[in-house]
């Protein structure tokens, strides 16, 4: 192994470049400790919790040996258990105004821990603390961990080169805050993910690239590892070349491909997903398009059918919505020469008697049309489930159902499709055999590093220049 024993770290930081066995290290420590009390494991996001839980279960870690939570979830737990000591307005726990409530929750939890309240209780409850993905901690979250650390041995793990959530508020600086408060205990240096795939050389090359990026150097795409290819997108056929890159085959059987597009344009990502056979888009955890469809769909409106068709076009390819709407008009005025198809029948029934069951039937009929496939199955499947809940007698409203579905999927995590299109933010922490970067020049050095390390066998980089100068 790497020679780092997390159980020996009383207070420290472990730097863990991508794919170097960080989760394995945590799992191994939990298994070996066999504590009478569970280990508290915190991470950054609900998706991170779901992913880590899945991996720990896979590694055979007994579930009673650890407690897994997000830092924010943990902060809420502390505040609700010790309301007076945290001196927080109890309303913030309802999260009615997440934008202000979350920061207030963090401040309140840090304040309580700073004063030293509850530390003995925490020490009695948990044997030690691991915090994963520490690079994504903002300063109030870092304060929570810092002030809690006197209670028990604390080890934080992360990689400053993968800190890409900095747009959400100032992150704790790796050198200034993290390593100062939690001295560096070691750095993982074996590229296990690549080694396990029989591509250790490629993994080692990525570690070298990480060093270059960390040092602020450029990357020369004409001198890359054999597993890496550069697609020149400086010409007029850039889009076609990118589409070709999207179709890159994995070298192994049933291999998976992650396609990384522009973070700023989900629309562009979906376009690539719809134009690439077999590709689907990775959705953000808030399933925004599902929730907004549920909120705006008005069955009583004359535009209800149009709304459903618009939604269908958004999540499926080749729906032919305009044609369908026209046919419905024709059929309704009985100017038809051709009898109505199943789909058209469903559409007419819906327009005459708009129900949630009708929406579901209509979406189902569309999906069965030849040549139609969903490139956003996350939204479509979620919508079908929400509709099922909403159409039940005495069930929730469609909007409530959509929120329930969102929260469920937040907790469950996302199943990774074989060929997925997303952004670094959406794909961080996910792994595949092949990684395809559609706009390498647009990525800063940390996003670039995250993007480059998603695939364990091959890397395809689309760029207009053969030298990457990430900011």
């Amino acid at each position, binding site marked *: 192994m790497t020679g780092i024993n997390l159980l020996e770290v009383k207070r420290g930081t472990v730097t863990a470049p991508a794919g170097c066995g960080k989760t394995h290290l945590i799992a191994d420590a939990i298994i070996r400790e066999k504590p*009478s009390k569970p280990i508290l494991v915190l991470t950054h996001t609900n998706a991170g919790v779901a992913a880590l839980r899945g991996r720990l279960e896979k590694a055979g870690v007994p579930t009673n040996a650890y407690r897994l939570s997000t830092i924010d979830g943990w902060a809420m737990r502390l505040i609700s258990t010790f309301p007076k000591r945290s001196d927080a307005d109890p309303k913030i726990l309802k999260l009615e105004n997440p934008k202000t409530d979350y920061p207030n929750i963090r401040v309140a939890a840090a304040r309580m821990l700073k004063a030293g309240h509850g530390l003995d209780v925490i020490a*009695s409850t948990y044997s030690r603390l691991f915090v994963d993905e520490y690079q994504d901690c903002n300063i109030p979250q870092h304060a929570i961990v810092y002030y809690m650390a006197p209670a028990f041995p604390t080890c934080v793990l992360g990689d400053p080169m993968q800190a890409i959530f900095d747009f959400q508020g100032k992150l704790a600086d790796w050198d200034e805050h993290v390593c100062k408060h939690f001295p560096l205990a070691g750095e993982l240096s074996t590229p296990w993910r690549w080694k396990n795939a029989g591509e250790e050389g490629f993994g080692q090359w990525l570690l070298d690239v990480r060093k270059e990026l960390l040092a602020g150097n450029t990357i020369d795409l004409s001198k890359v590892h054999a597993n890496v290819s550069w697609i020149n997108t400086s010409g007029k056929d850039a889009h076609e070349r990118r589409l070709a890159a999207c179709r890159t085959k994995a070298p192994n059987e049933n291999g998976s491909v992650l396609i990384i597009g522009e973070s700023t344009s989900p629309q562009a990502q979906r376009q690539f997903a719809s134009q690439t056979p077999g590709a689907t888009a990775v959705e953000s955890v808030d399933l925004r398009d599902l929730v907004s469809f549920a909120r705006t769909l008005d069955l009583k409106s004359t535009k209800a059918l149009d709304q459903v068709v618009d939604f269908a076009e958004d999540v499926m390819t080749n729906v032919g919505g305009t044609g369908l709407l026209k046919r419905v008009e024709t059929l309704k005025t009985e100017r038809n020469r051709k009898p109505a198809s199943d789909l058209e029948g469903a559409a007419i029934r819906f327009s005459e008697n708009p129900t949630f069951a009708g929406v579901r039937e209509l979406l189902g009929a569309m999906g069965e049309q030849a040549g139609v496939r969903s490139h956003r199955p996350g939204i479509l499947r979620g919508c079908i489930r929400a509709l099922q809940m909403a159409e039940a007698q005495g069930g929730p409203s469609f909007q409530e159902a959509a929120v329930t579905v969102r929260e469920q999927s937040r907790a469950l995590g996302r199943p990774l499709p074989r060929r997925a299109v997303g952004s670094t933010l959406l794909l961080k922490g996910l792994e595949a055999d092949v990684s395809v970067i559609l706009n390498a020049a647009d990525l800063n050095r940390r996003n670039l590093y995250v993007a480059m390390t998603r695939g364990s066998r091959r890397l395809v980089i689309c760029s207009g220049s053969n030298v990457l100068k990430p900011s």
Partner: protein
Amino acid sequence: MGPGDVGKSSILDAIDLCLGARRNAQFTDADFNNLDVEQPISITITIGELDDSLKSMETYGNYLRGCNVEAQTIEDEPEKNCETVLTIRLTVAGDLEPVWTLVSERAAAQSQSRNLNWSDRVRLSPTRIGALTDYNLAWRRGSVLNKLSEERADTSAALVKAAREARSAFGDQADSQLGETLSIVATTAQELGIPVGDKLKAMLDVHAASFSGGTVSLHGETGIPLKSLGLGSTRLLIAGLQRKAAKEATIILVDELEHGLEPHRIIRLIGSLGAKEKSPPLQAFLTTHSPVAVRELNGDQLFVVRQSEGTHSATVLGTEDEIQGTIRSFPDAFLAKSVIICEGASEVGFLRGLDNADVAKGEPSLTALGVALVDAGGCDHIYKRANAFYRLNYRVCVFRDDDKQPDPATEKAFTDQGNSLFKWRAGRALEDELFLSLTDEAVVKLLLRAVELHGEELIEAHIDSESGGKLKLADCKSDLTTEKREILAKAARRKKNSWFKTVGWMEGVAEDIVAPDRDADEGFWGIVEPVYDWINES
């Protein structure tokens, strides 16, 4: 400690009911204060020094509280400078159903309620050494033997085997003894066409020969069950075992700890409970009426239980020198209701002697009236001792000489609080009163007693010295003028070799000479009698 019926055992009962691992407990209307079932019974106990599992945020997070040990207050949430504690409450309302809950304002605000986990209740459950101690000498549920280690005897297989063997050993014996009945049953069955086979058998019933588990108990080398040991030995053994099991169960309740024990075994019991250890291994709640037990304990381990106006309180004696010294020399005083602080040994002896005479006449004794005599050890110590008892809510009075006076302000403060003071007439010590107040006959007896105790030579020398050579012992046996009496009193109370200044000597004098001397000076009896009035008011 405290007088009988003051509620000592009820306190032990309350602890037992609140913390004991019971699924249920029997209550009746008579358990309610004044039989008022509308007012629920409520027993609330806060426990500290929590171990990890009791302090677990996951299990008891919403119920953990903070105890400010210095300020003696409990806050609803743990605090940095407070000890983290749990509060357990047993409530019994009119339906007589006991309900155990953890107390937490914040949990109540969220309509949450819970009790300790069963396993934690079992761990906390106090061991009670009461009348029925046999229980703890067998491996029964909750017995101290089961708390000593994780070992358990597997009896089931052995018992089943034994049952089978008994059955086969008994065999067909019953057949011959029950032959007639068997043949009647067989015939009837045949007549009715019930198939029972050709021959009916009488055999030992398997169920009758089975034993319930948990009947493994302690036996001595000779096979005699240990529960046949004497009461004291049994209790001593169980207390000792409890000490060994302290890691698991830290609370022990012993009612009347001296029950069945000689003084040296009382001391051993107290020692075995860890009373003398720097960090006590157990929390023991003991009631006692034994001065031996009181003397063995420290002032901060002794609590006096008092009842007033329907409220019971337990006050710690404290560790001030005055208290600590009194515990060592007059432990029985703390077990009394009323205490007379006597200036010195002779006052103690004097009152005792008069008491002996009363008892001989068939009157109740001082002790029967719950009065204890304490020797203050000199005029300067009187009020230190008296106030110590007064602060602990004892009924106190002072009985002193007047040849030397204590600080008048201190004395005034004492009497201003309604306490009684008895003293000899101005400037007089006990000897002055005796030689000046008693009849001639009695004074002569005093002289004879002095000679008897100390020899003629010494008494002669004292008289000679006090009278400046004017008087001889023989002169003092008749024609007892005030002058002579004064000289005798001075001679009797000389600092060195005073005639009667021990408890025993003065006790004898008071019993044999003073008590019968009813014709003594009225002023003298006018001081002594109020003391007895005070005693009789107890």
